C-alpha cells in the first residue's frame, strides 16, 4: 500500500505544481490546496502507517496496546490541515476580491506592481 500512497503523493505534488503554474487564479488556489494535501499525506505516510489500530486507549486499558498507529503525525496533520484551511479560506477570498478589483482571472495581467519601477 505504501507504494500506492507514494505514487499518490507524487501525483499530488505534481498536480499541485502544474496547477500553480497556470495563469488562472482559481487554478492557483486549487494547486496550493493540492500541494497542502500532498504534504499532509506525506507526513502521514512517513509517520509509518498502521492499519486498523487507531491510537485510542481501550475502555478497560490504561495505555495503548502493542500495535497502534503513531498518534503524533496525526496530531501534526490535524494542526496542519486546520492551519491550511485558514490560509486557504483567506486565499480564496483574496481571489474573489482580486477578481472584483482587477477584473480578471488571468494572472498574467496582474504585473503592475513589478512593472512600475
Amino acid at each position, binding site marked *: 500500500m505504501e507504494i500506492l500512497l507514494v505514487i499518490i503523493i507524487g501525483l499530488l505534488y505534481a498536480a499541485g505544481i502544474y496547477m500553480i503554474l497556470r495563469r488562472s487564479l482559481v487554478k492557483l488556489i486549487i494547486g496550493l490546496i493540492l500541494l497542502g494535501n500532498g504534504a499532509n499525506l506525506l507526513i502521514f505516510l512517513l509517520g509509518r502507517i498502521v492499519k486498523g489500530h*487507531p491510537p*485510542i486507549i481501550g475502555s478497560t486499558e490504561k495505555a495503548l496496546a502493542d500495535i497502534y498507529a503513531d498518534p503524533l503525525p496525526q496530531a501534526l496533520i*490535524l494542526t496542519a490541515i*486546520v492551519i491550511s484551511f*485558514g490560509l486557504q*479560506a483567506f486565499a480564496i*477570498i483574496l481571489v474573489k476580491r482580486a477578481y472584483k478589483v482587477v477584473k480578471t482571472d488571468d494572472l498574467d495581467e496582474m504585473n503592475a506592481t513589478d512593472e512600475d519601477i
Partner: protein
Amino acid sequence: MKTIIFRTASDYLLPLLLLFSVFILLRGHYLPGGGFVGGLIASIAFVIHSFANGLEKTRNIIKFHPGFLMPIGLVFAIGAGAAPWIVGQPFMSGLWFDDPFPVIGMVGSALFFDTGVYLVVIGVSLTIIFTISETL
C-alpha cells in the same frame, strides 16, 4: 432559499446539531472528536439554519457578532494555558480536578482549552461564511 421543507427541517436540525457538537466536544478526550470538530459541527448547524432562514434570522439567534466568539475562545485557551503560571508551573501544564465530574469525565485545563478551541472555531467559521454571504 424560501422552501418550507428546508426551513422546517432546519428548525429541528439546529438544536439537534448543537447538542451533537457539544457531545463531540466533550468526548474528544476519550474518543474521536474534540473542540475543533465540535466547533465545526456547531457552525455547520448555524450555517444550515442561515441557508434556510436567511442570515438575519440566524443572527438574531446568536444575538452578537459571531466574530466575538474568537477573542472569547482565545481567552479560554490563554486562560487554560496561563493558569499553571499561578502555581509556578510551565505554560499549558495540565491542571486537573482530582475526581471525574459526572457526564463530562475528568475536568481540567485541557477541557477548558478544548472549549476555547470550540468557541474560536465557531467564531471563525461563522465570521467567514456570514461575511461571504453578506457580500455575495
